[in-house]
Each structure stands twice: as C-alpha cells, then as structure tokens.
C-alpha cells in the first residue's frame, strides 16, 4: 500500500506542493528534449532520403563542434570558423557518399547500420587524433549566443530561464521551420522528398540519387553543427556526448523514423519525461534512472505502436 502510494500519489502531491519547482523541472526537460530532437532530426533527414539509419549522427555532432572550437582556437574569427566547419562537413558528406553509400546501395538495413557504426569509429578516431580527447569549452560568446538568465516569479517562487536555453529552443524552431520550407518550396527539397518516397521513380524522372544523398548528409551535418553548438554551450564539448546521442534512437522510436514533427515531439516527450521521472520517481529506484528511461519508454512503445506517433505504417509484421 505504501509502495503504491509512493508511486501513484506522493509524486503528484510533491508536484502540487511546489509548482514553481515543477515548472523548472519541465523547462529543464524541455531544453534537453530540444537537443534530443535536434539529434533525432539529423537521423530522420538521412533515413528519409536514403533509408540509412545513421548511427554516426552522434559522433558527427561531437566532430563538428570540436572542429569549430579548434578552428577558432587556431586563430580564425568565429564567422570564418563556422564557414570552415561547414566546408568540412560538406567534404565529409561527399566522402561518405562516395566511399560508403554508393557501394552499399540496395543492401539490407542492418548492413547499412553496421556500416555507419564503422563510420562512427573512423570519425571518432580521426577526431581524437586531430582535436585531442580533452573536453573543450564552446565559443559561446564569440558566436553571439546570449548567456545569463532571467528569473520569472510565479507561484510564490522563481523559475530560472537560462538565455542560452531559450536561444537553443528558438534556433531549433527556426531550423525546423527552415527545413520545412526547404522541403516544400525549393527544387532540391522536392527532389529529396521524391527520393524519400520512391528511389526508382525519382531516378526515372532524372533525379541524381548520389547528389541527393550527398546533399542530405550535408544537411544533417549542418543540423549536427547546430546541435553541437547548443549542446556544447550548455556543457563542454567532449566525446562523452556520443553516448547521450544514442538516446535519439529512443526518440526516433517514439516519433517514427520518417517524421520530422515526430522527431520534435518525441524529443520533447523523452526530455520532459525523463527529467520528471528522475526527479519525482527516481528516488524510489535509487536514482540514475535517466540512463534508461528513454529506452524503456521506447521498448514499451514498440510493443503497442511500432510505427511511432507520426511514422508511416511501414513496419513489417513478423
């Protein structure tokens, strides 16, 4: 009885007793959710266009952020560093398309996944040799990202909003809107959607698959850079981020592999859910539940709605 009480009643009483704290928890969860959503967005872009489940997205985030910081450290001004990093990501995209994807066309999903795991190792090794393994701090001020915080007095308490978190949310919003416009209006965007729908039909109307793949990998490289900047600004840029990026896989299960809104909503659900679970239910289990909450949520979701919240119903029945 006491146990049931501590699961089903006590946490809600806690929430009601300190609404300002609840708001703060939700906000924290929201912000990390935005970052999960950004990583998941990079996955979705590539999965839609090429059917490749890009395991390397997490390491691309770390790699681009480290490249940015290192180029800046080498003496380039911030704007030039951003441009150079984008150039590196573009080169990487072309190289991946040439060396890996083109050779593995029409292979089984799992083979492609394993190829991207190999890619992860390569990028990680190169990154550690070139940029060093130590955590670096992000060049937040040079990039013009606001720091500091605003207090909001509510419910006889205060909720603290870090400006950088607000900026992260705003940038994520702008980027999703931008991608939406890009997909629906531009010529390349429409070609991307055509490829996502049907490779052969797209080929038959003269769309170059190889070109589209390079573009889409570059696009997710851009998403990776933005994610890396935002994440790096909240904590340091280090290779540990790669493990956190795996949570985006759980986000994808929730949102569906092919849906951009799904990636966002899934990211927010995971972010807010795991923070609230950690704060209100975590002590029951001895804490640290953040590490697996996302995956177990995804596992439960898989049993009932395998295509995710917004995904296309392409799941193969077994």
């Amino acid at each position, binding site marked *: 009885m006491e146990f049931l009480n501590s699961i089903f009643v006590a946490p809600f009483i806690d929430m009601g007793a300190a609404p300002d704290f609840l708001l703060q928890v939700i906000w924290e969860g929201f912000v990390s959710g935005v970052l999960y959503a950004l990583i998941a967005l990079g996955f979705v872009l590539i999965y839609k266009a090429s059917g490749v*489940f890009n395991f390397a997205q997490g390491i691309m985030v770390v790699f681009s952020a480290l490249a940015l910081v290192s180029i800046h450290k080498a003496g380039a001004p911030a704007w030039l560093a951003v441009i150079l990093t984008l150039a590196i990501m573009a080169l990487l995209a072309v190289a991946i398309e040439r*060396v*890996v994807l083109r*050779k*593995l066309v029409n*292979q089984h*999903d*799992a*083979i492609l*996944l*394993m*190829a991207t*795991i*190999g*890619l*992860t*190792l*390569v*990028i*990680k*090794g*190169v990154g*550690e*040799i070139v940029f060093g*393994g130590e955590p670096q701090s992000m060049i937040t001020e040079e990039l013009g990202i606001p720091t500091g915080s605003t207090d909001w007095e509510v419910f006889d308490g205060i909720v603290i909003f870090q400006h950088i978190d607000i900026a992260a949310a705003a940038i994520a919003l702008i980027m999703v809107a931008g991608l939406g416009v890009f997909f629906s209006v531009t010529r390349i965007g429409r070609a991307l959607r055509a490829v996502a729908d049907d490779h052969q039909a797209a080929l038959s109307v003269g769309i170059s698959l190889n070109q589209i793949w390079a573009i889409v990998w570059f696009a997710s490289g851009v998403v990776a850079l933005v994610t890396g900047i935002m994440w790096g600004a909240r904590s340091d840029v280090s290779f540990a981020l790669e*493990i956190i990026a*795996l949570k985006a*896989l*759980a986000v*994808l*299960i929730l949102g569906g*592999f092919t849906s951009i809104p799904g990636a966002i909503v899934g990211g927010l659900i995971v972010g807010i859910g795991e923070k609230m679970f950690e704060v209100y239910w975590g002590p029951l*289990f*001895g*804490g*640290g*539940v953040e*590490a*697996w909450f996302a*995956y*177990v949520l*995804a*596992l439960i979701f*898989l*049993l009932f709605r*395998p295509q995710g919240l917004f995904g296309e119903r392409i*799941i*193969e*029945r*077994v």
Partner: protein
Amino acid sequence: MFYREAGQFKTSYSADQALLPIKQDRIGLALILITAFVFIPLFGGNFFLGTIMIPFLVFSLSAVGLNILTGFAGQLSLGTGAFMGVGAYGCYKLTTLFPDVNIIILIFASGFFSAAIGVLFGLPSLRIKGLYLAITTLAAQFFLEWCFNRVGWLYNYNDSGAIEVPTRLLFGMAVTGPEALPAVRYLVILTIVAIMTLIAANVLRGRVGRSWMMIRDMDIAAELMGIRPMFAKLSAFAFSSYYCGVAGALMIFCWLGSAEVEVFDINRSFLILFMVIIGGMGSLSGCFMGAAFIQILPIVIRWVPSALGLDVLAATVEHISSIVIGCLIIFFLIVEPHGLARLWQIGKEKLRNWPYPYAN
C-alpha cells in the same frame, strides 16, 4: 594438391554426416587443438597467456554467442555486453550463495540467468525486427547496466560497487582469484570454449540451428514450412545469451578477477559486434578469426612505429586502431560481407586446385 578430398570415400551415413568430412580438416583441427592444449601452455609465458590468449578465448566465446543471434538467426543485437554482465553477476551471486559447489558448475549455471534475461528482452522480436529490434537490445544494455550499478544485492552491498572474485579450487588448483596461475585459467577457459563451440557447431547444423537460418533468410517462407517463429527466435535469444553469459562469467572469474560495471558497457557490445562482422557473420570459425584479429590489431599497431623507431602515445595507438577497425568494417561490408571466414574459404578453394588455377 594438398587439400583434396579425392580418394576419401564415405561408406557409412555417419561418415557422411561428420562435422569435418575432409581428412585434411580433421588433421588441421587436431594440430590446432594440440597446439592450444599442449604447446601454448608449455611455452607461452604468463604475459602471453594472460593478456593475449585468455582475452582472445573469452571474446571468441561471446562472439560465438552474438554470431548465433545475429549471423545465424538474423536478429541484430547491441546488448551483448549487458548479457555478458548478467552471466558475470549471476555467477558472482551463485558463488556467494553456494560457496561449496564447484566453480565450473556455477559458471555453466550462470549462463541460464543471462539466457532468461535474453529471452525477456527478445520478446519484442516477435513483433518487430531489424533496426527496431536493435533499439530494444539497446534498452536492455542501458537498463541492465543501471541494474549492475544500483542494485546493491547484485554486488553484495560492498562499498566499491565492484565485484571481487573469491578463490576457488579445481582438482586442488586455484582456478579463480588472485592466486590462480595463468596457465591453469587458460586451460579451464580453453576446455570450456572448445566444448561449447563443439556443441554450437552441432546445434547449428541440427534442426534448431537450421530453423534459425530459415528465419534469418526469409521469415514468412520459414513459417509456411512449419517453423514456429516464436520458438525459433526465442530459442536463438536464449542460446546466444547463454553463450554470452558464460563468456561474461569466465571473463570476470578467469581473466579480470574483479569487475566494475564499465567492463560491460556499450563499447564492449560494439567490440564484439565488430569481431562478428570482421570475422564473418554466420560462421563459427569466423568468430575466432574476428576475435583474434581485433585482439592482435592494437598490438601490431603499437609494434609497427616502435619497429620504425617512432614514438607513439598509447592513446594514439588506440585511436589509430579504432580508425583501422572502422575502415575494415566498411571494407568488409562492401567487399566481402562474410568476412575473414569467407576469405579463408576462398583460400581453401585455391589450395584445392593448386597448382592448376583452372582445375575442376
């Protein structure tokens, strides 16, 4: 010329169904086993046994486990490390609960825990497959890792949170714990690995193993031919996790001596997946080749620069070997998806016709 089956007539059904029908294969395997059982413990130093051969055998066994699931039954798993951990912690708990029982029995018994956990996390495979399944095994990985960290009962509530292996005897000699000699531990592991590989080879060519391969190749067709997908998949999960669990128990008890949770983290799972990919999916001998390859690669990379007179940091060696392994994985997936085992097969074919390249 040397490797020909010409003149080897099979005169009985049992000869026809032998595991190694060709005489040269039998001789080759016998030579390998004699080397492994006699010459390596006699002439290999403690360092060679302890840091190369023992890890190699442990990883080979877990690669066999993963290969059964991924290579033969076609279910991608990213949770191998956690399943090894279940075996290790299970064995540890068994030694504290039953201190008088022989350690070998406990090691084999601990595999049943990981088999049960494997079946539990394999249940989603009845509804989903491919990438989705990979993510459920990822859930297993992180959830179990958390359990090893937080559930005090598993490590007997000691302060460090790590498990320490007690000393246990076999035929009057210490096989586990700090006093155990590397040669003894090596022989114990080698015997277990050899027996379990033999069992795996026979299971895989038997009815159960063939049903796994049918599920892998085309599940709907397999179902139409009377294979029960539920039984086939769950038995693959149980069997594979059993192997991983025993490998994990051996890893702690006969190799490391004590363990923290980090030993069983996701990187371990990936490492074993790499062994399977490079060695060859769907091949038992490939597991050993892959494990040997990944085990030896860092040593070679460390040796090459020092032979050339260059000074390279240990961290750099690690990064270079990670790059090389990554490149090789991509290379093998593109050029030879069946890995080193297939290359060995091709080599044998060449040897068969040698010195006439176009014979047959």
